[in-house]
């Protein structure tokens, strides 16, 4: 196998990794907001439900959650699976798992805003939602960026778990080439691709943090 074939296969697998990454962010970033708000809701049963949800999502391995979501339709409801179901299962599992982590990061940000700001906003005639959107949220975004950066970088690497239910992403492709070609080169290339993509994400996050840091110049 030529190096070109190897790299084109790895980049083929990397597209799958990137697709999981992008779909997870698109789904989990907004879902996390809803979970964080529900988690702090005055409706106690709802808040408790969210606590349980977050606890299960954080307290069990993502790999196991993928298994559960992939196989539950068949083993619980008797619905036949098809070759497309694994892709749906991976994306759903990643979104609901990451939404739980994101929700807790959002909550840490929301709760870090001093009570006095809400009182001041009320005196100035802001409604509840205006206070949240115009005053609280912009500050929250700045405060949670470093923590979100951690999760986003972890997400890139977690995409390698998808093969446990048969979605062939970059790392499984690397392992397959290692097995047939008896060379360690694909691992080296895979490591390089992971690091370079995370370096790009780090740089983007650093630039965003710098742009948002308009009070500390």
């Amino acid at each position, binding site marked *: 196998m030529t190096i070109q074939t190897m790299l084109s296969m790895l980049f083929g697998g990397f597209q799958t990794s990137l697709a999981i990454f992008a779909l997870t962010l698109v789904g989990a970033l907004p879902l996390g907001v809803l979970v964080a708000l529900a988690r702090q809701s005055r409706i106690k049963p709802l808040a408790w439900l969210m606590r349980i949800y977050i606890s299960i999502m954080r307290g069990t391995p993502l790999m196991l959650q993928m298994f559960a979501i*992939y196989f539950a339709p*068949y083993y619980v409801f008797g619905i036949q699976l098809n070759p497309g179901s694994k892709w749906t299962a991976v994306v759903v599992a990643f*979104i609901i798992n990451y939404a739980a982590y994101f929700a807790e990061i959002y909550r840490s940000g929301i709760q870090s805003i001093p009570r006095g700001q809400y009182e001041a906003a009320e005196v100035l005639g802001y409604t509840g939602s205006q206070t949240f959107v115009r005053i609280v949220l912009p500050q929250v975004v700045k405060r949670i960026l470093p923590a979100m950066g951690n999760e986003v970088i972890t997400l890139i690497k977690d995409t390698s778990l998808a093969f446990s239910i048969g979605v062939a992403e970059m790392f499984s492709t690397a392992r397959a080439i290692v097995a047939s070609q008896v060379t360690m080169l694909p691992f080296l290339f895979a490591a390089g691709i992971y690091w370079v993509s995370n370096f790009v994400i780090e740089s983007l996050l650093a630039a965003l943090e710098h742009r948002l840091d308009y009070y500390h110049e």
Partner: protein
Amino acid sequence: MRLTTTNVTRRSAITMLGGAAMLGLAACGSTSGGSSSAGSDAATTESASSDQLEPTSGMDFVVGFDQEYPPYGYVGDDGEYTGFDLDLAQRVCEIQGWNYQPNPIDWDAKDGELNGGSITCIWNGFTVEGRENDYTFSDPYMLNAQVIVVKADSGIKSFGDLAGKTVITQADSAALEVLQGDQADLAATFASLDTRADYNTAFMELESGAVDAVACDLSIAAYQLAQKPDTYVQLDDELSSEHYAVGFKKGNTDLAKAVTDTLKQMDSDGEVEKLCEKYSDQGISYSNWCLGK
């Protein structure tokens, strides 16, 4: 061998979240059933129900295989899935007019994939012995043996020399089954018997000196020895001998028979022997073919 979110009002969002959480709970509650069935002694209770597949022309024939299992199923030099068993499967599909689809799976998830219906069969140097009650098999087509591979300079010559040594094999593999069953007395003399996710990792550990021996299939041993002839030696003693067949979900007897008949036909046409020659440098030998002989 071994083996999405839409724009919603706040109220409906809350309802939705509640539903999602319930789903999450249901999914987690089912894990015990799901994962135990995905384990080793699967498919015994479920199966044999209404979802039998009948061989029909134009049907999808999804072959589940471990892409890290040369020479049976692996990534070829051109980057396409290839291997002895995949070539056989592809030819059978051509003859039967089925739509051949190679589908790499994680070996630990094979039972769930098969029972769930996302794959039609497991065709990947799949050992019959010990799994007779769990799958509907085609007739066996290949003989195989479980052997032990050590480093050439280790000084280990026989099973007796393995006492106090570290031995590894693949998780959920036939070699592991033998070492926990018929050869449990031998395994008791090892310093330890551990498992790895795939044989390639196991052989990396053997080569680097992290372990003393790898228990595996004859064909895996032959493949690794062919790649690095000066590094490894295979012990003359065999742990067990066994047969390879194509595994279907329990009850799919018509499909299994169709595959058996086509394989016999390919053998009498001389196609099988040619295919064995193609993979001879990777440890496949026509002398081990046992279907229709």
